[in-house]
């Protein structure tokens, strides 16, 4: 799924990384516990979280994730935005809650570790 599709589906705002909207992600992880995120390696994944601190960006970076979606209207700090820019990571923010945001992405084909083919890929 393209990051721009995630943005559209979640009606999300782009905080940083607009130039990477065309990049693909193949799996997703929704959690506020960073050690749970770190427990399962996923390729080119998107992280959905309601947690806001610098460790969220570092965790995503350790996992080679390309995109973080902040749910429940959470806004990252300037420090987090700076860290994300250093790592060429996309930050999005949505008003949707975690359950709804994950459900929307799942039902549109972004199913955890597996890949559903998206038309046009």
């Amino acid at each position: 799924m393209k990051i721009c599709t995630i943005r559209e589906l979640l009606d999300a705002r782009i905080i940083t990384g607009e130039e990477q909207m065309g990049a693909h992600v193949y799996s997703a992880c929704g959690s506020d516990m960073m050690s749970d995120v770190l427990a399962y390696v996923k390729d080119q994944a998107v992280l959905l979280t309601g947690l806001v601190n610098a460790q969220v960006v570092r965790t995503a970076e350790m996992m080679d994730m390309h995109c973080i979606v902040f749910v429940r209207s959470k806004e990252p700090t300037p420090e987090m935005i700076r860290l994300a820019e250093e790592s060429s990571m996309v930050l999005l923010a949505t008003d949707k809650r975690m359950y709804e945001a994950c459900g929307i992405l799942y039902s549109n084909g972004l199913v955890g570790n597996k890949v559903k083919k998206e038309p046009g890929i």
Partner: protein
Amino acid sequence: MSDVLSFRFNVDGEDFTSAGQASVQVKKDLRRLGLDPEIIRRVSIAMYEGEINMVIHAGGGQAEVQVAEDAITIILEDKGPGIADIEQAMQAGFSTAPDAVRSLGFGAGMGLPNMKRYTDYMDIQSTVGVGTRVTMRVDIPQ
């Protein structure tokens, strides 16, 4: 085995926000060396969890990463309170981290199990009241 490249870091225990900086730097250094991304990911996740542990429990410490031809070794050393029961600490879900740490996304009792999961070898030497030394190794397939 030929040369061993070594990186050393001071892990600042004062500020949780800056925890993980050494791991980010190691990841960059290993990328520059052109190592396999999967190996880099395993090393940096294991080190990151260890670094977070040192900040949460031990007020910081020292980290060293040795890169050899056939393996990467991470040594984390602190002068913290030590681990009384290592076997218990290794159980997924067991944690002595304060609630404040949980609200920051850590302290779920997954740190040490994750470090073991991502490495080929892990050894913990700890003395209560003296400190802890964690040695981890990720093998590089030849």
